């Protein structure tokens, strides 16, 4: 599983960024690679079985326990 994720990452990263090399390409390229890396590190963590923090649960805790708003 993890190899599939890494292979997909490498393919998308190298093939996908090719059309970006025009004038002043670095901004597009940096955004492209950063986001792709974030996404694929999340996928890698899941492939390795590491529990990724849940945004949904984060919202629950933030609203209910910290801000004390929400329906019971």
């Amino acid at each position, binding site marked *: 599983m993890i190899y599939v994720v890494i292979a997909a990452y490498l393919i998308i990263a190298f093939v*996908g960024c090719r059309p970006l090399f025009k004038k002043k390409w670095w901004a597009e390229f940096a*955004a492209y690679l950063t986001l*792709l890396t*974030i*996404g694929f590190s999340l996928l890698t963590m*899941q492939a390795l079985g590491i529990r990724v923090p*849940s945004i949904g649960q984060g919202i*629950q805790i933030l*609203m209910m326990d910290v801000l004390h708003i929400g329906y019971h």
Partner: protein
Amino acid sequence: MKLEKDMISNSQMAFLLGIYIQGAIFCTALVFHITSRSISLISLTSLAVFLTFVFVYIKLMRLFPGHNLMGLNDIVFGAYIGKAVSGLYIFFLVVLTVANLRLLCDYVVGNYMVETPTIAIAIVFLFVVVWAVYAGLEVMARIGMLFFVIVSVFTGVIFLLSLSQIEITNFLPQFDISLIDFVRTNHIITTIFFGESFMFMMFIPCMKQQNRLGRSLLFGLIAGEISLILSSLMITGVLGDMASISNSPLNRVLRQVDLGQVLSRMEFIVTGILTFSVFMRIAVMYYAATIGLGQLLGLKSYKPLVIPIAAVVLGLVVPIFYTPSAQIACGISTWPFFSSFFTFVLPVVTLLVALLRGFFKKREEECG
């Protein structure tokens, strides 16, 4: 400055909004957990509440013609705070896309493809969404019109077929509901069904006839509202109190409906058709997130961001909620508040700040 160059007609915008609201059809499970008898009527009061916010959105759009949500943030709040506010919006849009995608995946996994991992369905679905976003707003608006017609026709047909099973007694007594539940149901429908269409502020500047903005939005909202009312009438009428314990009351109704002895067990086809609307809903959110981010980072085009955002969305779709029931629990308790912050509070604050900084006056002076 805005990144999308496509222009769409007013009617296309209306239909896009219509199908966007139809796409909330799988969210119906949330409200039926609280009450089932008067959802159809409550959806009307919710629409009325939402229209006041639509007024705020239109006011903002009129105040800064040619600028979309991200653009006017920069003007109203200044370069730095404006960017921060835009960042918040983009965060919300991404989370919203993920949550909607997850809801759809859970629906498919829970009812039809039980052995398939959620992520597999998410990948396939996102693949189509990415394609649509690549194609641009104009193409999305065009297929949106087509999908709107298809989904509306199917909703109507299913409603007619279910008429024989609808029991009027399931609707009575109307409004035997505590005040807090009434407010809560209203809140959920106003935010999740209607409110999350605030992102249309990203596309409104692309509309050809700006002076007919209000009419187009109203048409879209009413068109979406009609199919929501039909589906909630169907769910309440057929299931009655059983709707409150069902994970997906809509699916239960679809399974109940058949055309005589001949065409029974056809819910998979109907679900497939209804999925079109969810597809458009997710595509619109995704597109808004992409062009928003592209604009925030000052890119020349949003296209380089499409695939990386897909990777982020895929990375989040499974861990956003550990279980399907966690999503429902969040949806009926805290999500409406979380969502209200972005859909209602921030736009109203933006309008107030614009008021305080005297943009109203400037506009009047410019226009004479």
